[in-house]
């Protein structure tokens, strides 16, 4: 009565299908040389493999590809979008943006000049150099920069969290 072998049979599968590393393979081979049970199992694998290969490969019907191609619609050319009649649309957008900024500046200028401290500022060289509208513009852009910088940490964190959400999804 042969002794029961305790080797994991999965290792024999790895050996038979050459899915082991070199060192591992040597170890298993050594064991198999001494173990009749494992040799018998490997023999079974080989015999079954041989039996299965009695069923040889067959070909599909010759016109199969034609049937597949018939099922597939012809790729439609992408409809070309008609260009807007007004080709200068981007320039109009830019012009409107500039106009909007100017209007805001004029509005701000009107508001600022109503304050009492404005009179004292008139003597300042900067105001003399750029004029009251220029000073308002500088104030406007400084305010814009300040708001952007104040919001930037929040915006950066938000964009990063979105990126990781996409990555892990």
């Amino acid at each position, binding site marked *: 009565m042969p002794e029961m072998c305790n080797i994991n049979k999965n290792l024999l599968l790895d050996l038979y299908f050459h*899915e082991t590393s070199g060192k591992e393979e040597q170890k298993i081979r050594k064991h198999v040389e001494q173990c009749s049970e494992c040799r018998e199992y490997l023999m079974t694998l080989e015999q079954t493999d041989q039996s*299965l290969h009695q069923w040889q490969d067959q070909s599909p019907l010759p016109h199969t590809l034609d049937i*597949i191609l018939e099922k597939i619609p012809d*790729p439609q050319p992408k409809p070309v979008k008609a260009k807007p009649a007004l080709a200068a649309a981007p320039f109009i957008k830019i012009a409107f943006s500039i106009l909007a900024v100017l209007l805001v500046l004029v509005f701000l200028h009107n508001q600022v000049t109503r304050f009492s401290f404005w009179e004292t500022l008139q003597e300042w060289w900067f105001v003399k150099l750029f004029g009251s509208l220029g000073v308002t513009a500088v104030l406007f852009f400084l305010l814009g920069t300040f708001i952007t910088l104040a919001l930037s940490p929040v915006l950066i964190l938000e964009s990063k969290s979105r990126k990781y959400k996409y990555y892990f999804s």
Partner: protein
Amino acid sequence: MQKKTDNQLMKLLTAKDKMALKELYRRYEMQVFNFLLRYTGRRGIAQELIQDTFTRLWFAANTFDAKRGNFKGWLYTIALNLARNEMSKKEYTYQFLAPDEVHNRRQVENDRQTPGPDDALEQKEMQISVNNALAKLQPHLREVIIMKNYRHLKFREIAEVTDTPESTLKARYHKAISELKKHLHSMEVTTHARNV
């Protein structure tokens, strides 16, 4: 087109290039067809499923991601899912002997009456035995055997295709081998007895 890799062809397929599909079909028709044939055991169904597999390949090309796995595995996944769906239909559940096999068996009987080469006859009988033995296996056992013994995929690749752990697949393989051994042995005994 012939020199392009599978992944390059898939990129072309995403852009709806029919030549890419033709080339991929040429490369994999035999592998996929025989996989389906052995899984279903029926030539007619395998024929329909190979059409569905490549049609789906065309429509789902944009979902292929080369970073996730190779093209071959992805193609087998499509074929396997289609075959599983087809075989889960009630009408196939209890039918082991396929019409093709019946036809083959009749052919063998006819051949036996007319003198012919014994080897060819034996070959045919063996083929039927293998077909029947595979048909008797449970589908999840059959698919491991087919992918391993006929298509020579590694267990790691089969794990990707079937979305099953390697250890489970190996356990299934052991079980499938012991059942196949039993079925093939009983069929050999029957064939031998009939020949005597």
